[in-house]
């Protein structure tokens, strides 16, 4: 029995949330009284495996195969299934990345289990594990219990555990190379190299103040209201994803996991609920202001200042007050 952290890398670069997952694994393993192991997957990953082995853990599995050079759902699932049958962990933790979303549910199904996804907290009451995840886009939390045979599978929300809590080991842990049996025929997805769309003309990462608009704005024509506040504050205009999807503002102004990650001096969220995919793109802002008619909107979980009210009344008043304050 062990807690296994499945770390993510691509092209020899760690996904930054891998270390959060390892930190969480160390903490839960301590609570469960079990050793921590980690798995790294790819081709030529001994350098990464060695780096991971400096952390406080019992073992690093280097899952090596030529067919694992680029990620595929079929390849990763088959390789990890074989490792899990050998290593027999009681708990398998992943970072909740787009890649993990793509294969971990399939892997869990092979063990007649469910991936408890996007977990924000976990506790062990005498060995019985409770996993906390969000429902209704963060408006409610739920405590989840997992039964059944086979390991418990959970993916962890970015930022829910801190990477700086990671402990280093007194000596380097053993690295064991695991070569899964894979054949090219078994991998049905044929991936092409990643690409970006046209270069971004707007660099929100350089903005000192950002005023960001969400679906609370209702119609494209109303965006002028928020634009005026941005002007009054000398801010760049940004948006949540649905606004850019609708074509009301260009894609390059989208903030969040599939848009830009920003950390301005001040971020003003107007009519944005605060779904995690938006929060990951802006919670590093120094001061966060939220304007929302719903006092329970998850955006208030990260806001320093807030006004609960109708943005169509509040935003013009703010613009006026800002102009006055600036003189």
């Amino acid at each position, binding site marked *: 029995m062990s807690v296994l952290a499945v770390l993510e890398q691509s092209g020899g670069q760690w996904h930054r949330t891998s270390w959060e997952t390892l930190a969480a694994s160390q903490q839960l393993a301590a609570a469960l009284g079990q050793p921590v192991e980690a798995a790294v997957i790819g081709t030529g990953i001994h350098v990464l495996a060695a780096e991971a082995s400096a952390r406080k853990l019992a073992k690093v599995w280097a899952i090596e195969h030529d067919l694992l050079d680029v990620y595929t759902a079929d390849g990763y699932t088959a390789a990890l299934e074989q490792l899990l049958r050998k290593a027999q962990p009681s708990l398998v933790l992943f970072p909740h990345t787009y890649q993990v979303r793509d294969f971990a549910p399939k892997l869990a199904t092979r063990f007649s289990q469910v991936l408890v996804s996007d977990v924000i907290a976990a506790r062990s009451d005498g060995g019985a594990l409770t996993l906390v995840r969000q429902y209704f886009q963060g408006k409610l939390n739920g405590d989840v219990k997992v039964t059944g045979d086979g390991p418990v599978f959970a993916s962890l929300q970015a930022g829910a555990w801190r990477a700086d809590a990671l402990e280093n080991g007194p000596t380097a842990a053993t690295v064991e190379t695991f070569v899964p049996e894979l054949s090219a025929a078994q991998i049905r997805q044929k991936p092409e190299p990643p690409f970006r769309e046209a270069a971004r003309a707007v660099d929100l990462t350089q903005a000192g103040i950002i005023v960001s608009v969400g679906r609370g704005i209702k119609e494209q024509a109303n965006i002028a209201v928020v634009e005026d506040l941005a002007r009054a504050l000398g801010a760049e205009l940004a948006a949540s994803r649905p606004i850019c999807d609708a074509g009301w503002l260009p894609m390059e102004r989208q903030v969040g996991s599939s848009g830009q990650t920003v950390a301005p001096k001040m971020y003003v969220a107007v009519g944005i609920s605060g779904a995690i995919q938006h929060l990951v793109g802006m919670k590093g802002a120094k001061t966060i202001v939220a304007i929302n008619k719903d006092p329970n909107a998850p955006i208030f979980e990260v806001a320093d*200042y807030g006004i609960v009210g109708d943005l169509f009344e509040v935003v013009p008043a703010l613009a006026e007050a800002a102009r006055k304050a600036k003189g």
Partner: protein
Amino acid sequence: MKILVAIKQVPLRDSPLHANAAGKWIDDGGLSFEVNEPDAYALEAGLQLKEQHGGEVVVLCAGPERAGQTIREALAKGADRAIHIAADNLEALDTLGSAKLLAAAAETEKADLILTGLQSDDVGAGQTGVVMAELLGMPHSTIIMHAEVKAGGIRVKRELENGWFQHIEMPLPAVLTIQSGSSKLRYATLMGIKKAKTKEVRRLTPAELGGLPAAVASIEKIYTPRKNKQTQIFEGDAKTAAAQLIEKLKFEARVI
């Protein structure tokens, strides 16, 4: 080409949400419902592929009686027919359980392509389609923005993190989970709404699909999260609140 689109009915966005008496799910009495947003995009993708390649779009929905309304709306937009797995309390199932029901129903159709939304607004597991693919032995890909049928398979544009994308090819039949915003949604026409009334909705019960699977993961308790952060909230009318906030931003946070 036969395309199956899984759609889920969820509470209207911005619904007031409260735990039910058992504390294990929400009290949905008095709420209004709509189609899960990404599922509307999955339907749109299915309808567009049918327009290009011919064939049929079949809507697949597991939910209580009221889900019939959402199914009719999908038929009005142009789906050819529907399968309604009619059951209450589906929230007691876990993702594996509901995927088993959906996959068992899909099995009877022998579809070339199964589309789901990438994530539901209520449960938000983001995995039903992937689990269905595994149960049905099909390849899959997730967070799809675009799909193009090619000789011997399908080529998709998959969203990666931080503004990156990737094309992937795979053979059919396959399962894709569709991202919101992948194309413009169509509206139902008057004609469509009329026609929808005559379209076939095949009803299946969990019993006909092998019974309700037991859950391995279950919600013990659902609740409003306790706030960890101290947010200074400004009350009063808009003008007063705005003035107070700007003052704080100027003199306390010093960002103006």
